[in-house]
């Protein structure tokens, strides 16, 4: 299939209700960090963009939200034109200009502080990162605390960024500035808002 055809297919079958479903899953995940929200494959973007991250893009991005794609995604012209066609979102010139960043290979990604952290006056003007991970159970376990978590929560996302726990501590320290993360697997999502603290788990 050529790029033009690929770029116009695979959008939401029912844009209004699908967008609402995806948003509610993200909202619930953001409000309850570490909880895994299942998400059916409502979008069919070109690989390696996952159905879940594609659906998040369709639900939240538009011409007001510059996007940044990591090299693995940027390399695919089909992904760029699929996102462009379905969301109208422009590509950000630099990661620091991006409202949303989609990352297919978190293990190789640049440091979190390279993205927009917002300002002390407007901490909301920060990048939301969508990290595609293999699963949320086979990586190093992360014990989570903070708003949205009654006592503690645990996830173990696979293929996370290098020195993630240390980087996240730095992200916490920048509060109220900082980035928020949506972890996307092939069939679900979990979130790490900037308020979530990670207690590394003893093996």
């Amino acid at each position: 299939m050529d790029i033009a055809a690929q770029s116009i297919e695979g959008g939401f079958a029912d844009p209004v209700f699908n967008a609402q479903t995806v948003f509610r899953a993200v909202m619930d995940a953001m409000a309850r960090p570490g909880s895994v929200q299942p998400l059916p494959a409502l979008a069919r973007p070109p690989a390696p963009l996952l159905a879940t991250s594609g659906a998040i893009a369709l639900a939240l991005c538009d011409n007001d939200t510059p996007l940044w794609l990591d090299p693995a995604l940027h390399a695919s012209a089909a992904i760029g034109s699929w996102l462009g066609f379905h969301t109208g979102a422009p590509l950000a010139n630099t990661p620091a200009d991006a409202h949303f960043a989609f990352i297919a290979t978190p293990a190789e990604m640049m440091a979190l502080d390279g993205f927009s952290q917002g300002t002390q006056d407007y901490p909301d003007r920060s990048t939301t990162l969508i990290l595609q991970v293999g699963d949320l159970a086979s990586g190093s376990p992360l014990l989570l605390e903070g708003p949205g978590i009654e006592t503690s929560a645990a996830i173990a996302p696979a293929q996370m960024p290098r020195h993630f726990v240390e980087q996240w501590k730095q992200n916490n320290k920048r509060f109220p500035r900082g980035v928020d993360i949506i972890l996307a697997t092939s069939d679900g999502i979990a979130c790490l808002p900037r308020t979530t603290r990670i207690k590394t788990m003893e093996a």
Partner: protein
Amino acid sequence: MTAQSTDIATYNFAYLDEQTKRMIRRAILKGIAIPGYQVPFASREMPMPYGWGTGGVQVTASIIGPDDVLKVIDQGADDTTNAVSIRAFFKKVANVAVTTDTATASIIQTRHRIPEHPLTAGQVLVYQVPIPEPLRFLEPRETETRKMHALEEYGLMHVKLYEDIAKHGRIATTYAYPVKVEGRYVMDPSPTPKFDNPKMHRSPALQLFGAGREKRIYAVPPFTDVVSLDFEDHPFEVQTFDQPCALCAAENVYLDEVILDDHGGHMFVCSDTDYCEKRREEGHRGHLAPETDLAPGNMEPVQ
């Protein structure tokens, strides 16, 4: 021009267009990630006036889906006119199930109260907020209050509360009583009586706040610390009533005063109508409860 058609189908599901919903949804996510911080958003004109719940309506319209069950209260009551009007709006534009039952609602939009029945995980409480800025009455300028929040400079608020104590012997704020969220942002809980402040603290429900005219959205995620500002020698206290509800005999709930005649006769009844009705169904009786229950009266417009 299609405006002359009154067909509701000319409006999108839940009234707002999809681009507006995306913008509001993004603001909600930021609000959840930065508890208590007021996220600016490009509030739209709604078909009800500013000040009548447009912020709450925009938030509800952006989160609501066909599976939701909506409850709308004003002053704690499901049957106050503005609550009836907003509920009817969503029934019309989103065709969602509506309820008065706190426990079965998935989204509760409220003005001025938090229900007495404890909220549970998975529920969303949407507050209508008139003035979201807790520092506004101390400093009218947005440019200044923004700086104060950025620098976590809340001395002015403490000075004001302390002046109250010096002048009146107590903190003379009874509603919209400022709180500190997760130890960082001072937040306006909307004009709920301070009686309701403790219910916000570590609530299992997600709390979203929409201020339409002032164009701000903010949030308190579940299980988040919400502490009412106070002083060691003047700890925060909630209102107490020296009599139970006259209809259902409930104690430790917020009561409305109802004037019965023009000779000073009055009674106190639950402000939360659903809570009061549930208790009466369970057989609780206050000292002024009618023998047979609740024949729905009627309120006709005065000609």
